[in-house]
């Protein structure tokens, strides 16, 4: 099969088809992407105990011990001062110790409260920082997921483009193959046509060879003998008679003729005769004219305007007028 992979090069049609399929799957997956919801943490619902400093109480106790030790030292000083003044146990000594005790108690309370407040504030800030970090992490994860989906869609699109390119290349190569093959086939067909033409010339040679002699005979000057034979028709003769008669008039007088025979009728109904010239006719030279036509005496009865009398006393017929009748 021409489309099978050859030499390790993938079949472009198969690759294109798989690419289109894969791009479709990628697009479907991209269309199905749903980003996760980002939930904001709340400090109010946050347990701060994990954020409290486990050493707060120890610090407070150490601080109280320091204060109490300082107070004891103060009491000792007051006692020493009162003993030196021989006022130990006196009222002033008692007042001084009471004042010291009140200061110490106040210092203890303020110091402990401050330390505890500092610890709580620190825990609260740590919790807020943790909430913010979780929020940022969620946002980052959502963003990463979206970016990944976009990358997959872009990759699917690229795959589709490459597949389309590959398919187009395959089609182009195929068309080129077709054109090349058609050219090759055209050459072969031309050879076949030439062979057929030669064969046609071969089988037509007997017929064609006949033309050689015919062409040679046609090209050779060859005078032909032309023989014309003919007999004049009636109208031909009458035309001739009319021509002659137009010049001199026709000797149609019946007195110049003999052996008169009717041979037909003219279209105008006049009788047509043939005859022989008699002596009178020959004497005046009528025998130089055709011995066929009409008789002047007959024409004179129906169409006297066609007939004239000559100086010799014989009647003549104007044949050109005879033609105009009928």
């Amino acid at each position, binding site marked *: 099969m021409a489309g099978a992979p050859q030499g390790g090069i993938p079949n472009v049609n198969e690759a294109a088809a798989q690419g289109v399929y894969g791009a479709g799957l990628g697009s479907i997956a991209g269309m199905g992407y749903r980003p996760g919801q980002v939930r904001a943490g709340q400090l109010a619902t946050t347990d701060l105990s994990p954020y409290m400093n486990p050493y707060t109480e120890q610090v407070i106790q150490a601080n109280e011990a320091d204060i109490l030790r300082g107070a004891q030292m103060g009491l000792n000083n007051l006692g020493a001062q009162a003993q030196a003044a021989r006022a130990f146990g006196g009222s002033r000594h008692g007042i001084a110790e009471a004042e010291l005790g009140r200061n110490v108690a106040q210092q203890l309370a303020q110091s402990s409260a401050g330390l505890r407040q500092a610890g709580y504030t620190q825990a609260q800030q740590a919790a807020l920082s943790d909430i913010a970090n979780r929020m940022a992490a969620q946002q980052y994860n959502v963003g990463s997921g979206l970016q990944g989906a976009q990358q997959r869609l872009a990759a699917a699109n690229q795959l589709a483009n490459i597949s389309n390119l590959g398919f187009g290349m395959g089609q182009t190569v*195929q068309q080129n193959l077709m054109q090349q093959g058609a050219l090759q*086939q055209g050459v072969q067909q031309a050879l076949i046509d030439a062979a057929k033409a030669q064969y046609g010339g071969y089988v037509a040679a007997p017929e064609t060879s006949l033309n050689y002699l015919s062409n040679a005979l046609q090209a050779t000057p060859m005078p032909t003998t032309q023989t014309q034979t003919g007999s004049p028709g009636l109208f031909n003769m009458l035309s001739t008679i009319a021509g002659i008669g137009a010049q001199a008039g026709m000797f149609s007088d019946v007195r110049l003729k003999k052996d008169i025979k009717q041979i037909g009728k003219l279209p105008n109904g006049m009788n047509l005769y043939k005859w022989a010239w008699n002596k009178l006719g020959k004497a005046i030279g009528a025998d130089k004219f055709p011995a066929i036509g009409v008789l002047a005496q007959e024409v004179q009865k129906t169409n006297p305007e066609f007939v004239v009398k000559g100086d010799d006393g014989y009647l003549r017929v104007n044949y050109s007028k005879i033609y105009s009748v009928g």
Partner: protein
Amino acid sequence: MGGGGKGGSRTQTNDIPEWVKPYAKENLERAKQAQVLGYRPYYGPDVAAFNPTQMAAFGSNINAAEAFGLVPRGQVSPLQDMAPTPTTYAGGLQGYSSGNLFDQAVAELAARRPGQVSAYNKLFVDPYSGNYENLYVPPPNTGGGGGGTSQVTRFHGTGQIGYT
């Protein structure tokens, strides 16, 4: 040539010189001989076959169709519907000839209308033996016989042509 007016006539005759007449007769005789040769079919190639390049293009097209699921795989081939296989002629040229189809058509005609084919064949020489049974009936006053058996002797072999 004839003509003329009513009741008249005119005849004109053209005649070729005497020395031309033998050649004219010879040409007519040759035409008569060529006439009986009959149809000589062409058995060479008529159409060039598809070449490997075209077959590759066909294969590529089918493969593309298969790859995209348009035709079942392996069920369409470039050579399909291309029977019979092309014949290889001189020089390796491959092609198809209509000669066999022609023979088949003539045989079919002979089977269906034998009388007509027989009459047709008798107009010409036997394409195998070269014999010629002359059924030609010449026009009257030509001095030739008609309806008899005349033979063109040895069309093949000696190359001589003559009527007996």
